[in-house]
């Protein structure tokens, strides 16, 4: 069942000339894990803002077409109602942290306070969320004393604690080291497995290949490709359009030109690359003279 439906969505910020999203049609089913890829300026963040209702409620500007999440249409609801259904973790955690709270614990509780969750329910929910993202030990620190990667975890936690139906993440690991990235992707996958719908704007293709159910490629505000990771991430259109692709895919494509990749399908993960190149590196029965 569709939980997100965008129909002919075109959007222009108040001070920009050209639309940032152009005639976007997108339907996302409940429980799907959708990755959004695209060069900088393709409209990934704007799409995230649109799903989260910040467009148009906060940024104003001109939105045409319809945006519907969990049965509610943006134009017919206020941002206050919208946040109950959709949570957005910003690309830059600095823009998200309230600045009104002295500790990480209070920061995580901030959203729950705003929607009037009773105190006795709030405390266990915050503790559970902190444990989930592995930052229980930061609970008493000031959000501003943390590193970029730690702030990103706080930003993610403050959204998870709200238990939104749709989780929208804008490059949630951009400031993290590889281990932090792996842990956060683990958390996101857990949420997806529990049935939360996840929309993730991301450059890290290797993680998308491993986790996402579906990939939407945006270019100049338009949907260029939309399909399974194995189809979208191996499309020759991506490299031409300036998208980052995995070294497994680009190397196998080059190898195919040289006759060194024998399969029809190009790889997107290490496992697929190992499997395909094993055919090359071990001689075929014919070559062994059998």
């Amino acid at each position, binding site marked *: 069942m569709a939980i997100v439906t965008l129909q002919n969505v075109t959007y222009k910020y108040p001070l920009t000339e050209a639309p940032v999203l152009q005639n976007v049609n997108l339907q996302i089913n409940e429980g799907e894990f959708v990755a959004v890829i*695209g*060069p*900088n*300026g393709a409209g990934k963040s704007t799409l995230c803002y649109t799903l989260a209702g910040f467009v148009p409620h906060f940024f104003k500007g001109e939105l045409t077409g319809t945006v519907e999440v969990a049965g509610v249409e943006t134009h017919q609801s206020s941002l206050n109602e919208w946040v109950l259904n959709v949570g957005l973790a910003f*690309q830059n955690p600095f823009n998200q942290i309230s600045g009104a709270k002295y500790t990480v614990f209070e920061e995580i509780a901030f959203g729950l306070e705003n929607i009037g969750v009773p105190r006795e329910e709030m405390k266990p929910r915050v503790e559970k969320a902190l444990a989930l993202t592995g930052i229980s030990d930061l609970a008493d620190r000031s959000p501003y004393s943390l*590193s*970029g*990667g730690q702030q990103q975890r706080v930003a993610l936690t403050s959204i998870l604690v709200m238990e939104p139906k749709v989780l929208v993440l804008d*490059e949630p690991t*951009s*400031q*993290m*080291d*590889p*281990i*932090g990235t792996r842990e956060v992707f683990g958390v996101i996958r857990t949420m997806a497995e529990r049935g939360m719908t996840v929309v993730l704007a991301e*450059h890290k293709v*290797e993680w998308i290949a491993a986790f996402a159910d579906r990939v939407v490629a945006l270019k100049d505000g338009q949907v260029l490709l939309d399909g399974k990771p194995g189809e979208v991430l191996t499309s020759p259109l991506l490299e031409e359009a*300036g*998208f*980052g*692709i*995995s*070294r*497994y895919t*680009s*190397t196998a494509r*080059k*190898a195919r030109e*040289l006759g*060194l990749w024998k399969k029809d399908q190009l790889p997107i993960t*290490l496992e697929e*690359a*190992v499997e395909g*190149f*094993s055919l*090359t*590196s071990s001689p075929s029965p014919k070559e062994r003279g059998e």
Partner: protein
Amino acid sequence: MKINIENLRFTYPTGLEALRGISLTIASGEQVAIVGQNGAGKTTLVKHLNGLLQPTQGSVHIGDWDTRQHPVSKLAARVGYVFQNPDEQLFSRNVGMEVAFGPKNLGYPAEKVDALVKDALALTELSDKTETNPYDLSSTWRKMVALASIISMDTDIVILDEPTTGQDAVNVRRIAHVIAALRERGKTVITITHDIDFCAENFERVIAMSQGQILLDGPANEVLGQEAVLATTYVDPPQLTRLGLRLGLKETVRNQAEFLTAIRK
């Protein structure tokens, strides 16, 4: 200009010992990548190179200068530092002024400043944006402004802190192109990065740090192939290196050309 670090230890006022005995020599014109988990001491180490931090013990020499005996303002003529987040670095009304600020501050004559600015803008593909306010540019182009404003100071040593964070594939290529140009000019480039594929494709020497110490230091192929040691500082080898290891290739490979050559053997 040679960099010589001897038994460097650094303890923050909080008592945290961030560097625990670093000895390191970087020759003039080397391209070095520093990798390792958050908190390994990478940024603390490079902040010693331009005097932003002073050793608690040991010494840091930039050429013939001991960093303890020269102020940051003088070291700035030898070591340029590009911040991870360009927004912490940019403040001028337009790109041209931003890029001219550094060389002007070093006291260079007007003609030299003009020439340096022009060159830095051309290298970073910003020549058509001199009149633009940096904050009207996308984060991609702001990164290039931050780079240009350091390149224009024409320092022998350039430090890049996480240059590819949040950048798309096109801009990562642009940044790689700038690094290649600096190499041709004989500049020393030291880059902190989590982007291990970028590291593999653009640097000849790799230093892996962990808990304030140097874990590995050597030619990129040697360091990046040591999967088990790198794992202790939470670094995965580059994608093609991992693929080569899994396929049992004899040599460690780190880029497409090396991989395709090795697989034909």
